[in-house]
């Protein structure tokens, strides 16, 4: 396996069993249903999709918070999809997560100092209390919570949403990970604060040479902060490529729908209707046959799109899974 890619994901499926009692056959929620992607060292990439697309599950599967049902995941050339929990402790130092909910992701009973020192304590990193304090202070300065002594003694409920998210970022960075998965890191923050936090993440990512995988539905914001885009629909990646290319010339009808659905603050908007497909994303328990987008697709080809599942093929600058381009 080539090792210039930090993370390699090969045809991973993460299914959750929804039991049907003693007699029924087991049903599965096919959250991630055959996804492959790569993340380079120091790269920033984003998985974009709507709710139910499986993007969060994908991010957590890469972090091994879920175990994939099938497929392979390589981290630094090392296979991690088949390891058991006890064998993964080393990986927990390398890969970290930032959650969407700034309040729920911090232990309300801990002070900021305790929140930040937990990972250090668990991995036996610092030698004594003084060293821990140093690391914590540096982390707080990094996320611009200054003076660090003042913030270290606070509890999460004493901080604003933006401040809490900074603590979450600090916690993710304190172990100097090589990979961070950020799950909608700013969607619960005020508009004026979002850009600040995203810029902060970008600065720190560059400083520590960390790869970052954003999970988001907000195409407009992520455009400024990620180099690569993966568009996800119903458990599969349906288009991917450099952010600029995907947004300038979206190929897949779904990507096109996403791009046309997002309103910029333009007063002309009120004069027209948006051209978007009707309907909702399919249930992950029973995805449509063939191309999963076919029930909503304006370019639906009967006999083809509902029978054959399209594979990701290169077209122009992007990879796209659509029969229009194969």
């Amino acid at each position, binding site marked *: 396996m080539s090792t210039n890619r930090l993370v390699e994901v090969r045809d991973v499926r993460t299914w959750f069993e929804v039991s049907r009692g003693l007699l029924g056959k087991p049903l599965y929620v096919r959250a991630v249903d055959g996804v492959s992607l790569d993340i380079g060292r120091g790269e920033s990439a984003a998985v974009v999709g709507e709710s139910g697309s499986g993007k969060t599950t994908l991010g957590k599967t890469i972090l091994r918070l879920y175990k994939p049902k099938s497929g392979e995941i390589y981290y630094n050339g090392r296979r991690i999809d088949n390891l058991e929990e006890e064998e993964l*402790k080393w990986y*927990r130092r390398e890969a970290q997560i930032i959650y969407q909910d700034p309040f729920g992701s911090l232990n309300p009973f801990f002070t900021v100092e305790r929140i930040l020192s937990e990972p250090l304590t668990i991995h036996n990193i610092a030698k004594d209390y003084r060293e821990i304090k140093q690391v914590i202070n540096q982390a707080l300065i990094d996320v611009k919570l200054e003076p660090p002594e003042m913030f270290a003694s606070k509890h999460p409920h004493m901080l604003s949403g933006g401040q809490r998210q900074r603590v979450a970022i600090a916690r993710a960075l304190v172990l100097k990970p090589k990979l961070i998965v950020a799950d909608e890191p700013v969607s619960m923050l005020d508009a004026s604060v979002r850009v600040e936090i995203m810029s902060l993440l970008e600065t720190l990512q560059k400083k520590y040479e960390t790869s970052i995988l954003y999970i988001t539905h907000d195409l407009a914001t992520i455009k400024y902060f990620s180099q690569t885009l993966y568009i996800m629909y119903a458990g599969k990646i349906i288009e991917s490529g450099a952010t600029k290319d995907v947004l300038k010339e979206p190929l897949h009808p779904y990507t096109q729908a996403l791009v046309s659905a997002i309103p910029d603050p333009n007063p002309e908007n009120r004069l027209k209707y948006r051209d978007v497909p009707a309907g909702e994303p399919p249930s992950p328990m029973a995805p449509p046959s063939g191309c999963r987008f076919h029930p909503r697709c304006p370019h639906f080809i009967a006999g083809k799109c509902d029978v054959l599942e399209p594979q990701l093929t290169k077209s122009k600058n992007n990879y796209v899974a659509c029969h229009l381009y194969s």
Partner: protein
Amino acid sequence: MINMGSAPIGIKSVIHEIMHSKSGLTGVVILAFILLTSLAALVSPANIVEKWNDPQAWLDNPRLAAPEWTALFTGGNPAKTIILKPQDFKKDVQQLQPSGTKIELRARIVYDYDTPPSEMNLMLKIAGEARSLVTLKWVRPDGSSIELLREVTEPGSRTIFTYIDREITANIQAYLRKIGVADNLPTGVTLFSSEKSLIEGTPKLIKSHDVKPSKPYELIVEATSESKGFNVEAQLNLLGVVYGLCGTDNLRRDVFIGIVWGAPIALAFGLVAAFVVTLIQAIFGAISGYYGSKVDEIIQRITDVYLVLPFLSLLITIQFTYKTTIWALLIAVIALSLFGGVTKSVRSMALQIREEPYIEAAKSYGASRRRILFLYILPRLLPYTFANITVSVPAYVFLEASLSILGLGDPALPTWGKLISEAFSGGAAYYGYWWWIIIPSMFIVLVSTAFALIWYSLDKVLNPRLREE
């Protein structure tokens, strides 16, 4: 609003909530009061159990006396206990011719109560080598007198129970016949009524101050003996009809002391049982909820079995068979309550907490399951556990009391339940010795109320919807 979350519920805010609500504060005050009584018990002499079970230790108390404050309701001035110690007797020693010694002991009793004493007992201590002749003479304020006793007695200590002594009773009957009255009057009435009223047929108690100037009652003890080293000492107990704060029981024990000595036991049993049981159940519940799958199944099924167990019946059987002490009973109670309702409710709380992002976050930075359980989940469950402890203390206090009332408690310790049990078997309900039953019951209720009030004040803490916002 800016601050999306309110402060998490920690022990500090629980205590704050208790102290700042009316019910909580009342509960704490009552509890403090009972704790103080327990402390009083703990600093008193150590041989509580022996003293409680030794009737000799209580001879200076009246039997089955009501509490003194009942006088406020019944009116009047019922007899209280008067004890005349040896030094209160006026002693006169006379040498006789040709040999022998005559010792006269005179006790003066100023008596102004409305009722005669419930008992009048004389403890005589005669030192010497030979027999002596002892006479007892009783003088009333109106001047009349009765010779109660004239007999020869060996040296030693003896107690003369005036009201039931055969000799004295015979002498009193003779006296009554002499003055021309029926001889079936009770001794107490005879001794303390004026002779005139006795003759008239309507006995009326004569008080010292009924006579002007006031005159005391007198008991004159005369002892004559030839022996060498002859000495006589006496103590006279005029035992009242009322006694102390809580009255006495049939073994003359001060019920108040029973209450005081029972307090630490009740509290200790209740608190220890509640604390240990709730904590163990909570830990099992947390493990069950957090670890899930097989561990969860096993713990829940065991809990179901425990919930079906006939708790009280088993305890009664154990106690009946083994008659254990209270501490063995405590262990039995705990063993029979290792799993229970708290296990189930804490499990569902743990299930919810498990879904919170910060728990998964802990997993992502490498925290082991054990670490998450004890450092992340359990602290969150503490306030609920604390409230549960509070509400179950009364249950255990009641349990111990119930077993004791049934006669299945600790055979030696003076617990509140024991008091009630002895009251019933001593006929308190039938004869109306209400203080013996009601006062211990009241204290049991008081302890329960204190904890219930505290638990009530915690309702706001536990039920987030009742809080502001």
